[in-house]
């Protein structure tokens, strides 16, 4: 269910970026720790986009890795979700660098946008 709320927020940001012109493609960067599941997001998007400038748009979700830096030895690593501890020294006191965000990265406008908008 929260995927639908997220899609409605997403569409507001897309409308802001596209300033009312119609959109063919929307690219997101999805961190595994953002709590959002791309398949469910896409399903919700297929419903939420109806009647908006993104009604024909494709939603592309690019998964981003979880990256952290070890506080003990300083190593920077990409990690699986459930093992956020340092592979070099084993310390779990690591600082997350990325992987918890849900970002709108780009919006592609339809060809002949001006015409399409008239």
């Amino acid at each position, binding site marked *: *269910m*929260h995927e639908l*709320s*997220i899609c409605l*927020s*997403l569409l*507001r*940001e897309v409308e*802001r*970026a*596209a300033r009312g012109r119609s959109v*063919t493609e929307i690219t*997101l960067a999805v961190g*595994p*720790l*953002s*709590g*959002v599941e791309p398949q469910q997001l896409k399903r919700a998007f297929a419903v939420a986009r109806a009647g908006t400038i993104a009604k024909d748009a494709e939603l592309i979700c690019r998964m981003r890795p979880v990256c*952290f830096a070890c*506080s003990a030895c300083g190593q920077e690593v990409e990690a699986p*979700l*459930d*093992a*956020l*501890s340092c592979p070099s020294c084993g310390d*779990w*006191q*690591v*600082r*997350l660098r990325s992987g*918890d*965000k*849900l*970002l*709108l*990265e*780009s*919006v*592609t*406008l*339809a*060809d002949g*946008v001006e015409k399409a908008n008239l």
Partner: protein
Amino acid sequence: MCEQCGCSLTHERMQLSDDKGIVSSTPADPHAIAVITNILRENDELAAHNRSHLGAHGVLAINLMSSPGSGKTSLIESTIDAIGGRLRIAVIEGDIETENDAARVRAKGVPAVQITTGQTCHLDAHMVHQALHRLDLHAVDLLFIENVGNLVCPASFDLGQHANVTLLSVTEGDDKPVKYPAMFRISDLVLLAKCDLLPVLDDFDPDKARAHVRALANPAPILEVSARRPESLLRWIAWLEERRASLGELSSRNPHAMPPG
């Protein structure tokens, strides 16, 4: 100005939008616009507004999350009893359908606002903002926000709380943190709830639950509590009082940031 409370909502909103709005357009493809925007920007801005509103009134806000039935309302009830008059408490109750939880809290003589979310499985900053306007924040030191019972959706929505507290009851699996990493990673405190039942349960190991939270690189304290044993609530209440006392520093801090070091 916020039309309901006269606080400086639009001002903050503009400042935040400057930071996080549209970054640039890509000259290579005239049809592509590069945007780096947090999709939940509107929610997060309103949450920041709630947080500064609460902080300005000296109210510590706690976002209580768990699966349904893990004991959130019971914990609030017994915490009200255990705190006595030392902190003035108010409660915002999130529930899909009923008013029951707010009624339970009101029976303790504490103001409670019920938000029935209908189809929505989480609270968001907008719902909490509206609920805040139904409370007299001048008469509150500690606000519990009982989120909808669900370990997935609430993790994505900042409400304006100062701390996330997640309950894991011992009748659930001790591996819940592995299954719901987003939720357990953002928890500032994890409470192992219903610990009075530990002697009769052989499949919940508090040390395993701790290890699973640490595997998410979360240094949050993990306390064992029981709503049925007031003496088990002492460290939880000490934690609340400490957070309330350091509210000044807290209100400027991003609740989702990992503590340094």
